[in-house]
């Protein structure tokens, strides 16, 4: 039998459907692959092989009984941000200790309800704060991709670095991820995978460890646009347990993937051509434009004038919300506690030892921008900027169907290359944070390799609730790019 782990999700489901293999066989292949690779790649921080096999057996029974769901028998990985009942969930932070939820997040419940099989919990930046997965309590995963002729370990991006690594290295068919400022799209771009952040409110945040409530959104990282479309459909739902969840139906987007872009108007925002952008990124973008033109789309140059304020606004709003959201990690009810002489001492000890440096930095920034006397100058102004950014998008979307931009200003970088300079690290999010601030869907698709053989991603940003167009444009680009490269196996 050929290596089942290399299948796409769609192909694997077809194989299960045609009884070419069972979920148990498929799951077993992944368990073995994880066993063989994870010490090196560090994608999984919790492995659940027994649970996976039990779920696989149950799936095989359902399929035999003709009751298979849309994802039945498909082994997937879950970002450690999602609370999973009975399986340790720490958001890769020390402060959560050995926290094991008694409840399941809505997104993962949706997956299990559709028959998916859980392989384990995936590495991430601590509380999703980071762009290189270096802030994880468990150490970073390794990008399966390396620069040609180099052994230097590269980051898979962040915060969903574990999800991206696992998908790129065939350690799951697909994975859940989450995106607050680019945490799905940037890792996808760095690993030659597809990642989509749906419209804010499409997927429930219930049971997702919160980073920044108004920006956090669940989404998948997958091998193909079609896989991503299927996974997004299953993950999203209206959830009364999340007040910001949108009361809308979730369509089947797979049909959109192959509809083509003929007659569509695609906007190219001038402001995304930033100073110091590598020529290779420029070229990739131009290539993307050309592909779309060749397939019959009309290209329109557009302007999103407030783009330059997006990153500063993001790094006020996100830390502000985080500073409040993470207040519950106080060592009182769950997770780790460092007992001190008195209450204050206990709080300080617990939080100083439980949170890593980047989380502490953001909590301090967030606390500062919300404090009396600074609120108006920072938080309130950032919210106004956010409104302006949304209006920019609304203006251009009156005219175009979607926007095309690069996903990131660079290919994957090496560990330590940026971690010493937070601002350099934050600049990674420059093309992705706008979609979070405006609540819009954004998808990254692998489009080319750079001169060093590393994957680069293009991003399609769509109108609110118009994932259909994102999938359509992404599907067309995927076809045009014909991106089939896989990392050369070194692990």
């Amino acid at each position: 039998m050929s290596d089942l782990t290399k299948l796409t999700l769609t192909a694997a489901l077809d194989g299960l459907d045609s009884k070419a293999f069972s979920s148990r066989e498929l799951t077993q292949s992944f368990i073995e692959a994880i066993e063989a690779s994870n010490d090196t790649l560090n994608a999984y921080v919790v492995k659940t092989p027994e649970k996976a096999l039990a779920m696989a057996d149950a799936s095989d029974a359902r399929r035999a009984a003709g009751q298979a769901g849309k994802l039945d028998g498909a082994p997937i990985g879950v970002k450690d941000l999602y609370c999973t009942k009975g399986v340790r969930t720490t958001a890769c932070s020390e402060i959560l200790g050995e926290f094991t939820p008694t409840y399941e997040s809505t997104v993962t419940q949706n997956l299990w309800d559709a028959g998916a099989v859980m392989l384990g919990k995936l590495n991430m930046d601590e509380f999703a704060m980071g762009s290189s997965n270096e802030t994880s309590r468990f150490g970073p995963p390794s990008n399966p991709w390396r620069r040609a002729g180099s052994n230097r370990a590269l980051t898979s991006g962040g915060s969903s670095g574990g999800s991206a690594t696992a998908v790129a290295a065939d350690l799951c068919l697909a994975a859940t991820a989450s995106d607050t400022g680019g945490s799905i799209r940037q890792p996808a771009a760095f690993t030659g995978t597809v990642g989509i952040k749906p419209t804010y409110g499409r997927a429930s945040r219930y049971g997702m460890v919160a980073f920044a409530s108004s920006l956090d959104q669940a989404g998948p990282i997958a091998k193909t646009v079609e896989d991503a479309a299927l996974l997004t459909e299953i993950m999203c739902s209206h959830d009364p347990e999340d007040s910001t969840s949108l009361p809308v139906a979730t369509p089947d987007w797979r049909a959109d993937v192959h509809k083509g872009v003929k007659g569509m108007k695609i906007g190219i925002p001038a402001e995304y051509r930033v100073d110091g952008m590598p020529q290779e990124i420029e070229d990739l973008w131009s290539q993307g434009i050309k592909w779309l033109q060749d397939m019959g789309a009309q290209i329109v140059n557009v302007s999103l004038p407030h783009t330059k304020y997006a990153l500063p606004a993001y790094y006020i709003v996100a830390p502000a919300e985080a500073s409040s959201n993470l207040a519950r990690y106080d060592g009182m009810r769950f997770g780790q506690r460092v007992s001190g002489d008195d209450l204050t001492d206990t709080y300080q000890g617990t939080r100083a030892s439980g949170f890593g440096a980047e989380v502490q930095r953001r909590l301090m920034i967030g606390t500062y921008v919300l404090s009396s006397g600074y609120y108006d100058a920072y938080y309130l102004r950032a919210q106004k900027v956010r409104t302006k950014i949304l209006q920019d998008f609304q203006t251009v979307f009156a005219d175009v169907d979607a926007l095309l931009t690069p996903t990131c200003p660079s290919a994957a970088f090496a560990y330590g290359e940026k971690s010493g300079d937070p601002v350099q690290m934050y600049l990674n999010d420059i093309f992705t944070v706008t979609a979070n601030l405006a609540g819009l869907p954004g998808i990254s698709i692998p489009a080319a390799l750079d001169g060093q053989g590393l994957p680069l991603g293009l991003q399609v940003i769509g109108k609110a609730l118009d994932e259909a167009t994102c999938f359509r444009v992404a599907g067309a680009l995927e076809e045009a790019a014909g991106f089939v490269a896989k990392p050369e196996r070194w692990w």
Partner: protein
Amino acid sequence: MVKRAVYQVKGDTGDWEVVMGLEVHAQIASKSKLFSGASTQFGAEPNENVSLVDAAMPGMLPVINAFCVEQAVRTGLGLNAQINKMSRFDRKNYFYPDLPQGYQISQFEFPIVGEGVIEVDVEPSHGDAAYTFPVRIERLHMEQDAGKSIHDLIDDATCVDLNRCGVALMEIVSKPDIRTPLEAAAYVKKLKSIVVALGTCDGDMEKGNLRADVNVSVCRPGGYAKFRETGDFGHLGTRREIKNMNSFRFIQAAIEYEAHEQVRVIEAGGKVNQETILFDADRGETRPMRSKEDAHDYRYFPDPDLLPLIIDDAYIAGIKATLPELPDQKRARFEADYGLSRYDAGVLTADAEGAAFYETVAKGRDAKLAANWVTQELFGYLNKSDLELSGSPVSAVQLGGLIDLISSDVISGKIAKDVFVRMIAGEGDPGDIVEAHGLKQVTDTGAIAAVVDEIIAANPDQAAAVKDKPKTIGWFVGQVMKASGGKANPQAVNKILREKLGL
């Protein structure tokens, strides 16, 4: 219009006047909490009524309880206040073990209810007549209650009970319109009567379901008038906030103590610092709450887990249509329909139960007589005995029966009071009591005339004098009543005496 009482503190350097504004926390009478489905049942085992949301487990999100929103709007309407169609929940951030989220969800910038005004009735006291004065409501907002920290259960540890955590409160904030301790208590009483009538809060102060924080400041006479003229708080003194009072008596005692304390501090050359204080009921004094090392910066910001709360006119109108008769409306009706004084009507409508009791007693009877018996005799007795109306030994039907006996001249008002005492003692229906003790008044004029003749014959000097001083007839009446054991009909006695004495 009766003038408002003046409350001044006499200091060594002159008089001071007192200004108060109140923040009343009323627990919404809801079966579940403001943002979770956990029960609000009182008296549960510690931490029994705690959901994952209340315990702020990772990934848990608040979902607004629509019933609570309705009660807040209802209360706003009962306070004659502006209902805000857009309100918003904010987070008030601070760390404490009984606050699992690390923030309280409250409405800071955009409360659901804006300005309103209520009329407050002050009972007569220390020679001051009863009067009514307006208190302007600044706002009403919804917020979560915190849990309870118990410091003395286990040595060296603090226990936390999260049952209350997340319970819905309405915080009702008044403007600084209250000027005497009695007015402060009367204001809370009025609020209580309104929320109880509306059914939005059970008003149970003993359980802490209705509690008040009182902001007290003192200023020189005239300062308050200038404040009202200009709106400039600079004319008022610095306020201290007495937290968490749940009895009318404590509210008054605390304010009296605090006002004098502030005057003492200022006159000694000190300064009143804006701080929160507690009233120690055992010692009868206020003292600052253990001051935190650092001043709190609550870092309020809109809760990103919740959308702004938008309601429309139809929603508000729908609630308005189901409002019950409010205490003020009921009082107006009692004044009009029963011909009662404003004060009596106010006393009778202070709570729905009392009003219903009165209406049962008054139905088909002399309304004023009924009012006197209910407010003075029955309420007087209940107050003295520290009893609730629900624990009254005399039912409305029984009291009505007693009034019937008076109105039909079976007994006199004086005898009725004796009968009432026996009713309280549990001797049963008034008719039976009158029968058993032979208390029926004597209306037989022959019998009365015989007694009158005897009295006149025995007191010739008085009988002669009464012609010049007709008012002394009262002495004869008393003698006749005494001789008849109080049972003679007073009107008949009067009439016969006048005839026989030639008046």
